[in-house]
């Protein structure tokens, strides 16, 4: 979609980095223009009018002007700053993880409204969700679907037969499930319990409201996380950086030795 010289859009700020003395480069995600890198000028000075309106993980309404290299944010009005999120380190870090995934999986200027909607809904839900891990798994599996990486969970990716209700195998490289007979068809497969398979199907097909009826015990939650992490790492060909910090926060505190 061609942009006019000055344009208005809603946006979620995915990340920011410093530029020069007082500016920041923002990576924002928009409903109709996809991902955009733009400059917020003077924003590090405490009197900047943009100030908290261009903070990381802000949902706001922005005016942008096309620049020579990067577009320039001329105005920003906060729609939602997700304030309760910001005073909870774990939830903030989970929201940063969803923003990093969107940043890493998307190219600039490619519209993908479902991704925008999913990100916005997920960040809102993180604030009150009791099982944030389940929410993150729903986010991951839906995001992959919207980007063309929907994992195959109905039939064996090798022999194409419908999966039996037994322990099957998940292949990151094959992008889906292998039946026990075909499990050697792909390298580095991992066992996928029947319960995990059922939950993944549910998360893939349902809105989060529906999906949140299923309760995940700790073992199942860990299994799903490991499967999704291996699949995401395989597609991106590298680790998602903010995952390390999530792991760090979950580790029993090991500094007071």
């Amino acid at each position, binding site marked *: 979609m061609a942009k006019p010289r000055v344009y208005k859009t809603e946006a979620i700020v995915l*990340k920011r*980095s*410093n*530029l*020069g*003395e007082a500016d920041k480069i923002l990576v924002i995600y928009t409903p109709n223009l996809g991902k955009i890198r733009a400059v917020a000028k003077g924003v590090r000075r*405490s*009197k900047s*009018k943009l*100030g*908290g*309106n261009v*903070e*990381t*993980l802000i949902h706001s309404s922005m005016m942008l002007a096309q620049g020579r290299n990067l577009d320039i944010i001329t105005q920003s009005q*906060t729609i939602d*700053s997700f*304030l309760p999120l*910001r*005073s*909870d*380190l774990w939830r*903030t*870090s989970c929201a*940063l*993880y969803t*923003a*990093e995934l969107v*940043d890493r999986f998307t190219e600039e200027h490619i519209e993908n409204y479902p991704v925008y909607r999913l990100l916005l809904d997920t960040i809102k839900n993180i604030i009150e969700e009791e099982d944030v891990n389940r929410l993150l798994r729903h986010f991951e599996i839906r995001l992959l679907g919207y980007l063309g990486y929907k994992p195959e969970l109905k039939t064996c990716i090798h022999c194409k037969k419908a999966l039996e209700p037994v322990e099957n195998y998940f292949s990151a490289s094959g992008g889906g499930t292998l039946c026990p007979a075909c499990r050697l068809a792909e390298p580095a497969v991992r066992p996928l319990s029947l319960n995990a398979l059922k939950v993944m199907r549910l998360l893939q097909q349902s809105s989060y409201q529906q999906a949140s009826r299923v309760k995940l015990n700790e073992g199942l939650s860990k299994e799903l996380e490991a499967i999704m992490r291996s699949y995401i790492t395989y597609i991106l060909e590298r680790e998602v*950086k*903010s995952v*390390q*910090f*999530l792991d*760090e926060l979950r580790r029993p*505190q090991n*500094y*007071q030795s």
Partner: protein
Amino acid sequence: MLNFQSTPEPISRLIEEFNKLPGIGPKSAARLTYYLLRMPEGDARALAEAVLAVKENVMLCSVCQNITVADPCSICNNTQRDHSITCIVEEPLDILAIERTRKYSGVYHVLHGVISPADGIGPDDLKIKELLTRIQNDDVKEIILATNPNLEGEATAMYIQRLIAPLGIRVTRLARGLPAGGDLEYADEITLTRALEGRQEF
């Protein structure tokens, strides 16, 4: 882009070096280089020596991690200052800003960055272990968290607060609110909410 091939090697080399500096693009790098070219030799030599001196004589204070020419630094060495209060800042420049107020007489600890998960910068990349060792050995009564009031600064403050909590030391955070000289109508939701929360008896 500038064509480096047609430029004499020493000049293109200096342009490339300037270009590596933060906030300096190829055009500014070329402008600085040609400015230096016209400079008296004495001035150029003084600049080069100043650059080297910074690298040779400046180190991190082993106590507070601030940049210094003597270890411990002049602040850590000052017995007039209150060593039971430690103010935690992101960068050495933040110390200069707080010192300018002349309202703080405690000591500092410089983290040299903030936690930024998406950039792969975690607690181990900051001077947090040094902080913990320090407050366990010294008699610290209060920690002031003076990281920047943005998402990364808040996350870092919360992380440190969590680590220190079991030690039973008082932890405070710089008040976050409206900037002096600004207009209320331009204040964003986060700033205004924090200003309301931090309101004081008048």
